[in-house]
Structure formats: structure tokens, C-alpha cells
């Protein structure tokens, strides 16, 4: 305590997370969309990633395999770990994918999240996907 406190960091990393829950603007699973709408949706995600690289804000983006393939693991370090396979009743609460960005401000993070939320669904209508914005503290 007592030393001069340096000014805050220059850039901040955020995780933009989205779950499997039905989006506000679309409750049809992507597998049931017309193929051209699926293609448009995938292209939107690629374009958004390219745009983030181009703006010097992209860190990482990953989509996760379907909840059916998820496993829950619990262990006490002594007995064999308890592994639970899907399907899970709460599968829509599972993470579907994330983007990590490195930006000047929380306002910019929200702007990118808002754009991600407009990802097109059937008929090109925005899915209004719910994006969770979380500041990254770094690896534990």
C-alpha cells in the first residue's frame, strides 16, 4: 500500500459467449433451416471474424460440439471420476461457442456483441441471439 498507482490497462479482453438456448428471434434449430440460410449464417460468422482481425481486435473464436457429446466429470482425486454423458435436460444452458476480443472499451465490446446477436436465421431475419459479455482476467 502507498505507492503511486499506475494508470489502468490500455486494451481489455472480453469473452462473448452464447448458449444453445433458442434465440429471441428464432426458435427453430439450425439443422431445420433451409440450406441457403444455414450457409448465410455461417458466412456471417466468418465475415464477423474477418472484420475483427481486420480491425486488430480478434483473439480467438471457437464453436463447441453439440451438447449431445458433452460429458460432465466430477472427481475427489481418490476414487474413479464420475462421468455423466448426455443428453442433459438443461442442454440449452450449455455453451455453444465464444469469441475472444481485445478492445479499447467495454462500449466497443458491447457493439461487437450486438452485431454478433444479429446473426441471420431462416429467411435472413436476425436471430437476436443472446450474447453474454464477460471481461477476461486471464488464465488462473
Amino acid at each position: 500500500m502507498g505507492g503511486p498507482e499506475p494508470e489502468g490497462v490500455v486494451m481489455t479482453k472480453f469473452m462473448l459467449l452464447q448458449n444453445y438456448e433458442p434465440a429471441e428471434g428464432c426458435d427453430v434449430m439450425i439443422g431445420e433451416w433451409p440450406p441457403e440460410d444455414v450457409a448465410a449464417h455461417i458466412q456471417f460468422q466468418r465475415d464477423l471474424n474477418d472484420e475483427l482481425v481486420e480491425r486488430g481486435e480478434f483473439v480467438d473464436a471457437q464453436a463447441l460440439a453439440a451438447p449431445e457429446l458433452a460429458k460432465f466429470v466430477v472427481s475427489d482425486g481418490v476414487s474413479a471420476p464420475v462421468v455423466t454423458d448426455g443428453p442433459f435436460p438443461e442442454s440449452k444452458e450449455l455453451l455453444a461457442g465464444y469469441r475472444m476480443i481485445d478492445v479499447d472499451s467495454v462500449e466497443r465490446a458491447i457493439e461487437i456483441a450486438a452485431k454478433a446477436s444479429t446473426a441471420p436465421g431462416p429467411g435472413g431475419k436476425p436471430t437476436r441471439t443472446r450474447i453474454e459479455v464477460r471481461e477476461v482476467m486471464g488464465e488462473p
Partner: protein
Amino acid sequence: MSHAADANVEDLLRGLAPQVLGVLVRRTGDFAAAEDATQEALVAAASHWPRDGVPGNPRAWLVQTATRRLIDEARSASARRRREGAGVARDVVDADVPGRDDTLTLLFMCCHPSLTPGSAIPLTLRAVGGLTTAEIAHAFLVPEATMAQRISRAKQRVKAGGARFTMPTPEELPSRLRSVLHVLYLMFNEGSTSSVGASLQRVELSDEAIRLTRAVHEQLPDDGEVAGLLALMLLTDARRAARTGPSGELVPLDEQDRSLWDHAAIHEGVALAVSAMSHGAIGEYQLQAAIAALHDEAPSVAETDWPQIAALYTLLERMSHNPMVTLNRAIAVAMCEGPAAGLRMLDALDEPLGDHYRLDAVRGHLHEIAGDVDTALAHYDRAARRTTSIPEQRYLTTKAARLRAAWS
């Protein structure tokens, strides 16, 4: 080739980077293209020289290599551009221009007020510091492609902002120098207290900030704020070895092993801070350096000149109107007059600082000194939940856990 030889080549290249870039910008008038070509020449040298030996005139080698890149670039652009390439080739027959230091002129471009610090710092590190894109990307924990784009966009913005490769006019100089010093100050802080990632010190960034500030000081030896900033960096960096524990945990000033402090750096920093004070008006960096000097010269927390530190914070507070300064003054006042006096001062900070974790951390500390363990714990817990720095969070959580264990 040994690591020492690699390190020597690296030091050599970093020193030459601004000189080579200066030559190319002056010849082509195109900062963005010249900077790309210089970067490529530096990368080529870093791979060839440790293996083949350093050429007789390393600067001329770099200028020639960078020029060739510029010509190649111009040739491949289009048939129309090819003629321009031939023009460039005629201009650069004499690669051995007299040595001259363009560091300061380049800093004014890279720390242009049209850039955010998030763009200015990487651009400065590459164009003036001679670091590679990969090294800068690594320091900021982003992919190389992302960092390359960030730097490229920064250069476009500098160009759009109308920056030219000349020194600012005497009228512009004070405000432009303030931008440069601010960027170097933030670069130093990025290196000395990183709040992203588990690593508390990204030493490279601090070292580079000190090296560049030293270069500015050499060019402008009579500027008190430049000297003040260099002193502040040296006096802060002097505590580097003591600032983290064996597993990378944060060690606050009052728990640091002062025998680990770098006394040569303290000596240099104090001398700079003292001589800076003789150069006319006193600025914020000089005041911060003076405070850092008082900490660094004290044999212990108890023997620190807290009344003098509180007085310097009062001056700094008037100058900066920054609530963080008031927070630090409250700590100094608490050390002189007891925790109650410090806590009273904090009441005025609820509004400007809001939920900032530092306010809770300081309240926790002062309540702990006052013996009010319950209140101290509540503030430590709140601070730990609100910080975005892992080392700070660990420190606060550990502090609360120890206090709880001692009390129960």
C-alpha cells in the same frame, strides 16, 4: 551462435531501427510503406546476422535491404507503379547517409494524438523500438495477424490525421510532447503491472519504455517532465525484483524485501528527479517521481517520510484532479495521522470512484489497521470480487483469508 550473440544482434537492430526508418521515410515520403520495408529488413537481419556474422556497415545493409523491399513492392503493385520503383532505385544508390537520430521525430508520428494508446503503443514498439510484430503480439496476448492489422490501421490513421515526418512547431511542441510521454508512460505501466493474464510483469514493455524515454531525454535534456518521467520509470522499475513473490504473487510496497531493490537505478532516478526540479515549472511526472524517490530512499515503511509524501500528493491532486491521487493521499495521511483521518478523506471518493475495487481495498486496509476486522473483511471481499486483475484478486483473497484465520 550463442544467446549472448543473439542478444547483441537484437540490441544492435533495435538501436538501428529508427535510423533506418528515418532514412527511408525521408527518401520516399511514405511512412507506412517505409515502416513495412524496415520491419522486413530487421526480420531478415535477425535471421541472417547471428548465422553469417554482422556486416561491416550494418545500417547500410538494412537501408539497402529495406529499399530493395520497397522496390519489389512497387514493382509488383502494377506496371504503372514499376516506373516509380525504378525511380526509387536511382535515389538510393548511396545507402551510406550520415548518421542522425530520427527517434524523436518518429515518436511524434507514432504517438500522434489521432491514435488511441492501444494503437500508438504497438506502432511505437515496432517503428521506433524495432520489435517484431510477433514479439508485440506475444506481449499483448493476441494473434500475430491481429497485431499486424492493428499496426497497419494505426499507420493509416496517422496518415489520415495529416502527420508529417517533421518535428512539431514550437507552438505545437508542448502538447505533442505530452502525447508522446503519455504513450511511453502507459507502455511502461503495461509492462510493470499487467492486469491481463497471469503474468504480473511483461518486462519487455517496461524496458522498451525506459529505453525510448531515455532517448527522448537525450534529445531534450532540459525538459523537466521528460526527466521526471524517466526518473519515475527508473524508481518504479527499481522495485521490480521485490514486487512479486516466488510463485508470481503480488507483494505490496509495505511487505517488500527492500534489499532486492535495484540501488543503482534508485541512485540514477533520484539524481534525475532532483535535477528535473531545477528545470522551471513542476509537472505531474516530476511529482510522481519525487514520491517514488521518497519511497525508494526509505529504509522501511515506518521510516518513510509520509508527511512529505502527503504534501506532494496534495500538489499532484491540484494539478491532475484525479480521484486516484486523492486515494493515495488518503493512505499517506493515514500513515501520518492514523487510519481515521484517512477513512474520513475516502468519503469524498464514493461518487467519483464508484465501485472501483481500489477504494474498497484501501478501506479494508485502513479498517484493518484501526482494528475493525469485520468491516475490513467486508471491504476486502468486495474488492476481490470487483478487481479485473488476477494478481490483485489473489492478493486480496489471501489477505482476507489470513485476517479471518487470525481472528477466529
